[in-house]
């Protein structure tokens, strides 16, 4: 049953850009996959291990800036940059995690905001990283080795592969020892420690993996859009959006973030197409209203709604 579901999902995602030929629907699907990847990465830290991060943009930006700067200054292939960015972000995550994991609940969440804001301000005032102007990547020179594709197809398969690998990794981690340890830490850290769970080490594991995956998404974004600056890859609003994707879908469940991205990305696109033309942000009015309604009436996220519709209790 599970294999049939996975095969159907792979087939659907694989065939989508071949069947749907319009550049805009293809672009939307790439955004869905990108957001699903970001949500899945957040979910490992926030959903599985229960450490609410509102600073994921730091890791996204670390990936985007590392790979772009390596390419611009040393001619390093963006594919290697993808891995280098992931390594830098994971290292940064461990440095952030070491002190911040002494905190819990809201104190931890606000600490991730504080770190994110500091990084954003520093990069904005750092000329080597493009400062407030940003960094441009060359438009020409299309080849797979240069992470450059003529149409959206290539980008679609790259991000779909990254998402697939991340989901497989998340599923594997969740089923194994880390998954049980994380759940124990999330439910009651003191109790988990008392039965011998090395809480700090496993929280560090969660943030490092989450950061590495988020950074890969950052490199993908830089290569896809070919322009990065602090307001596009490091803002607090991006951190919140990443969290939102996972939470609306269902934090802590494997497919929640995917579901969240599938609903949220088309929803925000549709409201901005239908209502955004006025330039007066009516789309965001509706968006805010919907977030409020889902949080108020379906606190377990869309996965909770789906479970209830199938007749299972939410918790």
């Amino acid at each position, binding site marked *: 049953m599970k294999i049939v579901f996975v095969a159907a999902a792979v087939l659907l995602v694989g065939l989508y850009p071949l069947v749907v030929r319009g550049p805009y629907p293809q672009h939307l699907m790439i955004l869905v996959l990108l957001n699903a990847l970001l949500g899945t990465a957040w979910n490992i830290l*926030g959903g599985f291990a229960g450490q*609410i991060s509102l600073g994921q943009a730091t890791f996204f930006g670390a990936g985007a800036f590392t790979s772009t700067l390596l390419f611009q200054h040393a001619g390093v292939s963006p594919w290697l940059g993808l891995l280098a960015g992931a390594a830098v972000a994971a290292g940064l995550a461990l440095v952030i995690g070491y*002190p*911040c994991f*002494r*905190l*819990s*609940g*809201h*104190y931890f969440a*606000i*600490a991730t*905001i*504080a*770190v994110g*804001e*500091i990084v954003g*301000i*520093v990069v*904005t*005032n750092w000329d080597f990283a493009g400062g407030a102007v940003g960094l441009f990547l060359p438009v020409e020179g299309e080849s797979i080795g240069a992470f450059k594709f003529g149409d959206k197809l290539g980008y679609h398969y790259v991000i779909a592969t990254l998402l697939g690998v991340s989901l497989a990794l998340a599923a594997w981690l969740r089923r194994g020892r880390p998954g049980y340890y994380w759940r124990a830490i999330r439910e009651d850290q003191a109790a988990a420690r008392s039965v011998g769970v090395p809480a700090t080490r496993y929280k560090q594991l969660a943030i490092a993996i989450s950061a590495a995956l988020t950074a890969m998404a950052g490199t993908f974004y830089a290569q896809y859009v070919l322009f990065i600056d602090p307001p596009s890859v490091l803002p*607090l609003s991006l951190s*919140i959006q990443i*969290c*939102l994707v996972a*939470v*609306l879908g269902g*934090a802590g469940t494997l497919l929640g973030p995917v579901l969240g991205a599938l609903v949220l990305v088309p929803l925000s696109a549709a409201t901005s197409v239908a209502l955004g033309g006025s330039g*007066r*942000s*009516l789309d*965001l*009015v509706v*968006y*805010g*209203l*919907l*977030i*409020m*309604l*889902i*949080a*108020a*009436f379906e*606190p*377990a996220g869309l996965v909770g709604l789906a479970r209830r519709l199938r007749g299972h209790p939410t918790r």
Partner: protein
Amino acid sequence: MTTAQVAQALVSGLLIGFVFALIAAGLTLIFGVMEIVNFAHGEFLMLSMYLSYFLHAGLGWDPIAALPVNAAALFALGVLVYYALIRRVLRAPMLAQIFATFGLGVFLQNAAQFLWRPDFRTLGDSWVTGRLAVAGVYVSGPQLAAAGGAVLTTGALWWLLSRTEVGRALLATAEDRHAASLMGINPDRMFALAWGLGAACVGVAGALLSTFYYVFPQVGSVFALIAFVAVALGGFGSVVGAFAGGVLIGVVESLAGVFVAPAIKNVFVFAIYLVVVLLRPRGLFGKL
């Protein structure tokens, strides 16, 4: 770097710090009573500033004179938000609570942009104008009035909480809502009161700020982020802590702006937060 410069930076920082403190006090009151962070707090502030603006532009009411109107209007808004939205997420997970208020914030901010355009507005003239010079340190009238009003309001809130029957009932609810309800306190009404009072704090702060600060739809996020940090710095739920946190942040921001660089002054604000909570994981005055 003269003594006068240091004194000037300290005084400016203190003045704006008192306003931060009042905004943070409202936030921490709501959190203390029911453990919910109001992510729409900045948008409440923004609405209060627009209220001052329109009362001034439409009816010619001075923001300082209309202060009780702002306080009452925001109190009503807080109570309304509690009954319409917050009551539904009282027992929900922390994340659902965050997004209920976050969604409210997005809604209010963009509704303001839709209705009133993204323009920056200023009030023009107000009762309080001009500036004072005391021993070479300049103090602008509106800022002095705002700081004074903020200190008085925060003090009144502290008095209400610690010296009155209603305040004791609020604190009892914060301590243990079940035990409080056994003592004949209706927790539901206390929660609504906390939301009303918390919002009334930013109602006052908004009126005070509107005499010298730009009014625009995103103005709330500038102050909300600082208020979150001030609250966490002082310890969630502690009014005294929020006051200390707000003042500390005002001074640090001002000193860093003068002596390092205005562009990176907030680095110091966030760094101070990290240093404090790493030494005291529940803030300066938080319950351990």
